[in-house]
């Protein structure tokens, strides 16, 4: 009996299962999702002189509001409109959610704990992460709704505008570290300085692009309630809607983890503690906390900003962020040359 339990524990703790399934994969993604949406609402509410979610578990300020919402979504009937393309309509949200989360498997959580280590793991994360917006297009087109169509097209415009500069500003860090291996990047940062100090331009650009690609304010353009109702997700209800709504937060989560690794020193510095399992828990927790701070900062923007118009967001991306990302590559080279002197 004990043998079986140990075997299961071993299996779960094996990185090939633990990473995609538990952390930073599916389960922690869900947990973060439940927390961050609640926290976003609480933050906005505080700035707006009100309480936000309160009555579901009042002692903790309504902390499990999202669990209640999730239950409601689960039991609500997902209505598929007659005129919609059923296949695209139903599988769109599932694939959207899956593709938002899938990049998490390539994220290492300590020097020796990762699903796989590759010379190009940065590219794997960025590449997988680019998949998601395509399904927004599918959803928008498949739901056969004019607002959905416009929302999908907006996403289509934004894909290139945010992904290309994001690639470049992430690659600026690869240039700086001389590697695309995320584990090696953390190692180097612990020897030198955090990435954000070495190349602040890349960090700022990456952060703004993160907001843009995950549809946070002020770039909440794809959904834009007062303009196009809910964009691609206008026709959705029930758990399918829940998936579409969660997808962008999961994407934010993955990108925040990446941000923490690229710019904030990953799981370094580790607190000098020793306890059973600390080899896994400590670096994981440090990385998670850093990512959480980034996420909180991102969702705080809801309380500060209105939304840009799509042409303004595109102009910002192409006129300012894209040149800034190119500049950050040169900045990396400059830093490197300064380093070698």
């Amino acid at each position, binding site marked *: 009996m004990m043998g079986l339990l140990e075997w299961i524990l071993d299996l779960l703790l094996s990185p090939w299962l633990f990473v995609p399934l538990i952390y930073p994969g599916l389960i922690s993604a869900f947990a973060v999702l439940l927390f961050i949406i609640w926290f976003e609402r609480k*933050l906005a509410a*505080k*700035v*707006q*002189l*009100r*309480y936000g979610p*309160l009555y579901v578990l009042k002692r903790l300020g309504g902390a499990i509001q999202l669990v209640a919402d999730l239950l409601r979504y689960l039991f609500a009937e997902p209505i598929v409109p007659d005129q919609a393309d059923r296949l695209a309509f139903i599988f769109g949200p599932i694939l959207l959610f899956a593709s938002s989360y899938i990049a998490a498997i390539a994220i290492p959580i300590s020097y020796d704990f990762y699903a796989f280590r590759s010379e190009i793991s940065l590219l794997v994360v960025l590449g997988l992460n680019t998949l998601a917006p395509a399904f927004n297009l599918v959803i928008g087109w498949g739901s056969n709704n004019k607002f959905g169509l416009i929302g999908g097209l907006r996403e289509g415009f934004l894909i290139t505008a945010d992904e290309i500069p994001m690639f470049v500003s992430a690659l600026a860090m690869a240039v700086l570290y001389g590697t695309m291996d995320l584990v090696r990047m953390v190692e180097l940062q612990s020897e030198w300085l955090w990435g954000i100090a070495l190349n602040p331009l890349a960090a700022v650009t990456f952060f703004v692009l993160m907001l843009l690609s995950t549809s946070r304010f002020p770039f909440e353009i794809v959904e834009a309630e007062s303009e196009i109702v809910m964009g691609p997700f206008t026709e959705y209800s029930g758990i399918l809607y829940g998936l579409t709504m969660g997808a962008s937060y999961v994407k934010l989560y993955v990108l925040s983890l990446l941000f923490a690794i690229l710019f904030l020193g990953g799981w370094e510095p580790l607190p000098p503690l020793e306890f059973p399992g600390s080899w896994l828990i400590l670096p994981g927790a440090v990385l998670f906390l850093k990512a959480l701070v980034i996420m909180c900062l991102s969702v*705080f*923007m809801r*309380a*500060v*900003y209105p939304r840009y118009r799509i042409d303004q967001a595109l102009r910002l991306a192409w006129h300012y962020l894209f040149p800034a990302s190119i500049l950050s590559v040169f900045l990396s080279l400059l830093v490197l040359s300064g380093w070698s002197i």
Partner: protein
Amino acid sequence: MTDRRWSSPVFRLKGHLDAILTGAKYLITPRATVRYPEEVIELPEGYRGFIEYKKDICISCGLCATVCPANAMKMYVERAAEPGEEAPAEEVKPKRYPGINYTRCIFCGFCVDVCPTGALEHVETHDVAYEDFNSMIYPPGEFAAGPPKPEFDTPPRRLRPTMDERRGIAYEPAD
């Protein structure tokens, strides 16, 4: 008259910073919400809420029903005695008394202001929930039995609003 400063990216950057810092400042500002069923705002004196009817001083003039803009107030004829039947005086010569229909009442207070004897007066209540429309209609007898009162599961905390220079309205415990 367009502000030229806005064309400068540095000025815009300052605008972004200002906005974010102002948002952050309000993270530590006290909230304004009154959590209603647990806390109840005390209404000012003279609030135009539900109406109290003192039938004993009513002179059946019908002005309240005439002035009512929403036709909520109506004069009801009390039970009239059959000819020849022995009955109390008010049933032989039936009087009319007002009754109110709160599905229509708009709480303008004209009836209260026009009542020549002061038989009608507002009470500071506005939050009564009904289960059906019929129970919102009060014929004279029920109307005279007193205004409806809100029911709370637990007695609410009463808050008195006072103006405050820093918070706008400060709600302080009333008792």
